[in-house]
């Protein structure tokens, strides 16, 4: 048991402490404030070697938004989408990447962007993008865009690009998390891509080029790992659809996907 201390038992009745009966004089404190001595001043403002260190530490977040696979008539495909940033509250360096691998061929993109916060909800990003893969899709672009959280909790990302050979592109995507439970989350997603001019060799048609929608049901097995099941649908439009048809490719593609969402 804890050792007890006896109180001052003499104070049996509560006694109000001294109350000043005088009305307060404006400008004069009840107890005088002492005039500082030189020693007081020296103690109050010691000479310090180091400044107060409360700089924001650098944080790095890697968000594996999608790592998914599908089975398309026996052909297994794999796709990824990744977003990461490093930095502080306002200025960050972003790395974004997406792509897919199907039938032994990989194509995708990597972006390196400088981001600056705009208000509380958005980042303005700018930098470069490099496409890679096969079929002459390698292009290098300058990129500028915004990403963040719109009212009603929509995750929005919109980026405009200018390639080294004069092509322009616009990509935008919106996502929403619908909580079925705190662990089971349904996520619809919609996005589109558009190009500035026709480029038949790359099957890029001017105007709206493709739209993508999908719905993914993810289960937060832990708070940083969530497997998911989903359906993804992509449809080409306009000139792009024409190019694809002429080349014997599908104009629309729907697939069932199984994947993993994670961050660290």
């Amino acid at each position, binding site marked *: *048991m*804890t*050792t*007890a*201390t*006896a*109180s*001052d038992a*003499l*104070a*049996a009745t*509560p*006694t*109000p*402490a001294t*109350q*000043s009966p005088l009305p*307060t004089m*404006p400008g*004069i*404190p*009840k*107890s005088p*404030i002492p005039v*500082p001595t030189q020693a*007081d*001043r020296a*103690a*109050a*403002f*010691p000479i*310090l*070697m*180091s*400044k*107060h*260190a*409360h700089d*924001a*530490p650098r*944080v790095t977040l890697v968000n594996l938004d999608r790592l998914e696979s599908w089975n398309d008539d026996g052909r297994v495909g794999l796709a990824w989408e990744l977003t990461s940033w490093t930095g502080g*509250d306002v200025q960050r360096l972003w790395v974004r990447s997406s792509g897919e691998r199907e039938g032994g061929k990989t194509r995708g993109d990597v972006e390196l962007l400088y981001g600056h*916060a*705009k*208000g*509380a*909800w958005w980042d303005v990003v700018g930098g470069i993008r490099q496409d890679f893969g096969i079929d002459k899709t390698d292009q290098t672009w300058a990129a500028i865009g915004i990403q963040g*959280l719109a*009212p*009603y*909790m929509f995750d929005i990302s919109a980026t405009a690009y200018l390639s080294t050979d004069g092509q322009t592109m616009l990509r935008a995507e919106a996502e929403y998390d*619908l*909580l*079925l*439970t*705190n*662990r089971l989350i349904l996520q619809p997603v919609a996005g589109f891509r558009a190009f500035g001019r026709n480029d038949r060799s790359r099957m890029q048609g001017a105007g709206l080029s493709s739209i993508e929608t999908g719905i993914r049901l993810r289960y937060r097995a832990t*708070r*940083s790992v969530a497997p998911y099941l989903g359906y993804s649908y992509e449809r080409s439009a306009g000139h792009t659809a024409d190019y694809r048809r002429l080349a014997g490719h599908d104009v629309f593609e729907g697939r069932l996907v199984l994947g993993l969402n994670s*961050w660290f």
Partner: protein
Amino acid sequence: MTLFSSAGCGGAALPDVSRRRFVQGLAQGLGLSVGLSVAGRASAATATSPRASHAPQMLTGPDLALDIGATRVNFTGRDRPAITVNGGLPGPTLRWRQGDTVTVRVTNRLPGHVQTSLHWHGIQLPANMDGVPGMSFDGIYPGQAYLYRFHLRQAGTYWYHSHSLHQEQAGLYGAIIVDPVAPAPYRYDREHVVLLSDWTDLDPAALYSRLKKMPSYDNMFRRTVGDFLSDIRNYGWDATVADRKMWGRMRMTPTDLSDVNGLTYTYLMNGHTPAANWEAGFRQGERVLLRLINAANMSYFDFRIPGLKLTVVAADGQYVHPVTVDELRIGVAETYDVIVEPVGQDAFTLFAQDIGRTGFACGTLTSRPGLRAEVPPLDPRPILAMKDMGMDHAAHGKRDRYAGFVAERRDAPVLKGPVSHPRTERNSTYVDMQAMVAQPRLSDPGVGLRDRETKVLTYADLHSLDGDPDGRDPGRTIELHLTGNMERFAWAFDGVPFMDARPLRFNYGERLRVVLVNDTMMHHPVHLHGMWSDLEDDHGAFQVRKHTVDIAPGSRRSCRVTADALGRWAYHCHLLYHMDGGMMREVVVEEAGR
């Protein structure tokens, strides 16, 4: 008015066994035993029976030596490093006498190159004794010692803790009792320190990093489709849709009460997990004084003793007119001295649940060792109301962040009316919402306690026994807005974080008013070092002297400050990860004309 359901309200069964074990701690979860050698590992003392409940060691006298070191602890089944004072977590209780000049030699025995510090929370002393690295002194480097020396003008219950990065979270805190020269205006036969804290097995730097990456990590209680449907059943389509639209527009969730909750923390009472059951002894017929201290890093507690009433006799070490309540909310860094008269039972549970109702700390007030009383279940999880967002019914629906009002009313003592926001808040990354209408709401028990049929302590109940110690009307008013960005876990005053801000300047000797407006939906305990914050009532008159003032969500509270301490002083939110995130200012008190 809290209409809407919180996720799992009432049906919040404790999750799986592993989490319950985590919350309760080991059966032996003593953590570590008192009196270890500083360099040593936890000895076999951790295997002591749960009945051996140690109070923190007490050191008495004006000349003390404290060693800060690293010690292994085990609260949850995992062996983890902690930072301790003289090997103890909490550190020893320091007992001094008012009027003494105390010297404390604090030695850094931490491994590596880690600087440390000790701050004496609530104690008035010279600035170079305040223990804030970079403001008071350079900090204490490994192998070095700092000789603190100060004269104690005051008496009461206080506490001490590290002011170096993340060390308080790692265990560096302890109680201070300063015995008064004049007898206390109340009688008691026995006393106990009840120090509440939050422990994490995570490295505190890793926890902070996690907060920056995923601030909502611990918010596993968001409203779901099921809650939406049940709200429609209970409140109708229109009201439910309007409510969801309002929160959606703000991009916030009303279940966000604590950034870090019982999913991450194990709550401790005097360094004991609930399973370890810290015991406080009493004999029948005694009046027992409990010195409640909230030494947590991020957690507010609602404290009650089922079966006993609490008579609050002091707040933040200062006497108040006694008020008897059934329950009180103790914010981070606050202290309350309460007297209880245990009768009718052999044992009572000291119950402190976090405000988000995700966990609790508990102990037993017992007349014989080994007794336990029933531990009440956690209350249902509360949900924020419109007043917590700084909105009222009139304002709802006309959301305009810079709602029109014209001139700044600098000399208005009455804290009513629409809020005027500093220009630096406009488009700031550190501002994700603003209160539109903010009142002091001193008589509001707070979210989660509004429906109590029993009496809950509010700030409106606290009145300093001695009246206004200064007596002057405030000469000028400074207004500070508490702002934050939950998505980035970035915190500031007026939308400007500490690293970008200029110091506030007070003139030595002046009596000024500081108005704090909470432009966030969280509680923030604001602490000014070196000087008292005298809380004002609804009419702007002096009410109660404190060192730490809880600014409730969406509220506006004002304090009078006598700038009678020269030097550079920290002024910050005592949710320490918020302080680390930028919610801090330096206050320079200097003589006019120098």
